[in-house]
């Protein structure tokens, strides 16, 4: 299997503060890979660095065999990488329909309607609410909008930043089921950043553990779940 996304020796900084320390990470085609870690470990930074914001100051990021670390963000996102950013960030005053359309427009997806029908099939709730302003939806529904919007560009690689943030457990299960379903049916590759380590590791094929900006452990989801230090650090009580 070749890696769809391969980070080698990636370091990135916020000003003088080093947020990522020589990170190596691979995501293969058709895989769900999860990245877990505590608050401030650098999970979101890693995801944003893949998107070129902030730029990686050292190391290489290869996507589909091409170096993308030096490209501007919008160029990266046009290569069928889609991101559902942390905190959802839906366009509050625009309708659900417009939000979804925004996802398709830039990627130059000509068949918006079919893709949107697929998103509606995945999240039937969105089709009921398509004319409603995204800002009036509940948190879980907004998360669906954010994921649906990312899917509208028909991505090969989907970057999901904390989709479970602030959601009720039932909603989290729904969202995770949708991710699994997408991956099985369409072979969509997913890189998932999560605090909710237990659910994320159960969902993922493989996982990485990030501590203070460096990868400390890697393995299959089941392996990581079985490790006592993971259980102690991330799963106790969860």
């Amino acid at each position, binding site marked *: 299997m070749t890696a769809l996304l391969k980070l080698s020796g990636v370091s990135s900084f916020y000003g003088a503060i080093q947020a990522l320390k020589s990170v190596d990470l691979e995501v293969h085609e058709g895989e769900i890979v999860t990245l877990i870690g505590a608050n401030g470990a650098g999970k979101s930074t890693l995801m944003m660095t893949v998107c070129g914001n902030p730029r990686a100051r050292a190391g290489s990021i290869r996507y589909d065999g091409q170096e993308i670390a030096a490209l501007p963000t919008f160029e990266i996102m046009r290569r069928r990488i889609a991101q559902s*950013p942390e905190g959802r960030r839906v366009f*509050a005053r625009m309708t659900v329909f417009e939000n979804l359309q925004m996802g398709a427009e830039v990627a130059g997806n000509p068949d918006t309607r079919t893709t949107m029908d697929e998103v509606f099939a995945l999240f039937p709730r969105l089709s009921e609410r398509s004319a409603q302003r995204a800002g009036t939806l509940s948190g879980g529904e907004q998360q669906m909008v954010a994921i649906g919007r990312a899917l509208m560009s028909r991505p090969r690689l989907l970057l999901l930043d904390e989709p479970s943030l602030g959601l009720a457990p039932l909603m989290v299960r729904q969202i995770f089921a949708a991710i699994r379903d997408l991956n099985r049916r369409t072979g969509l590759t997913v890189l998932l950043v999560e605090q909710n380590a237990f659910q994320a590791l159960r969902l993922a094929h493989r996982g990485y553990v990030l501590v203070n900006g460096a990868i400390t452990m890697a393995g299959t989801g089941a392996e990581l779940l079985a490790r006592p230090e993971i259980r102690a650090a991330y799963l106790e009580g969860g």
Partner: protein
Amino acid sequence: MKPAFRDAFLSALVALGLFGTMIGLVTTTSPTGLTLRYRPEAVAIAVAVVFAGRLLFHLWHARHRPAPKAANAARIEMLRRGGKILAPALLVVAAILPLIAGRYYLDLGILVMTYVMLGWGLNIVVGLAGLLDLGYVAFYAVGAYTYSILSTTYGLGFWTCLPVAGLMACGFGVLLGFPVLRLRGDYLAIVTLAFGEIIRVVITNWVSLTGGPNGIAGIPRPTLFGLRFDMSGGPGTFAGFFGIEPNVTQRVAFLYYVIFALALLTNWVTLRLRRLPLGRAWEALREDEVACRSLGINVTNTKLTAFAIGAMFGGFAGAFFATRQAFVSPESFTFIESAIVLAIVVLGGLGSQLGVALAALIMIGGFEVFRDLQEYRMLVFGLALVLIMILRPRGLISGRTPSVALGTPKLIPTEQLPEAAA
């Protein structure tokens, strides 16, 4: 009731503190120099007014609890219907104004229409793209001076210069856009404010090009397909060509229709753009810049086009201003102009075309109506602004019509929205 009285009493105390010196003491000249005169009765009146006003405010609030949802929905429906009739009605009145109104109202119409156009132009930058621009008058000035200089130096006509003025302003829009790409909100506002001042100061001091504080006079009027509007009535003039009596009203009516057409062009372009990917990208940018990036939108280009296109319409309006006044000087392009245009956009409801037109009508037209109040005009004007913003904090027309929809669009009151984060 009791807290209302207590609050009114406290307000009255504050008023006493403020007005005690501001109103209560007057300096008068007397043979021995300046002496102080006391006016306790004036202070008493002011304090009483504050007390009563505060009390009435509380009573009014107690009576106007938020309406129940059903009534609210009905009100929205009514507003929507009203809006549907109001816009065409305004348009018809605007179109036939020269036929029904006298010289004074026509001049006022031209003024209002200029501000409608400026408001619509700035609406692209502030209302749609969400970039707070306090220096919009700079583009107005660039357009005005471009036409003035080209026409007085090279003898070019209005219609030749109009696109040039637009392009010049457009270029200045990009020029402003580049340094402020990374700025948002307050920081952006400060830089645009400075930009507006820089343009004005340059115009004032570059005497060889702009005439400095003396301005440029003798700017030619526009022609209708080469027909001039002057009073000689000979061949080559409008009156001579059609064989009618020359009349000043003809020229004024013509100017009115020119600005009317320019304003409609602005509106049409904005409405078209809103339905295109670019317009939607502007609105998305206003909502969330990070999300825009993550969707692969080139934020740089999106911002620059917003600045450029907004500036272009400002430039058109400027060229029109120059040709109407036949005289330009830096005094016409002070910060207050930017502030008025911005107030029109905010008052109208950011992003709403009809709202901006209404706000321009109220602000500019209303300002003229209160002319008899003389120096109190500014006071009434300011009070009206404050009142409108208290009663309708999101502007006169705060509902946003979706640019695309499955089936029939449904309007959702903005009151249900969480406050948008800056």
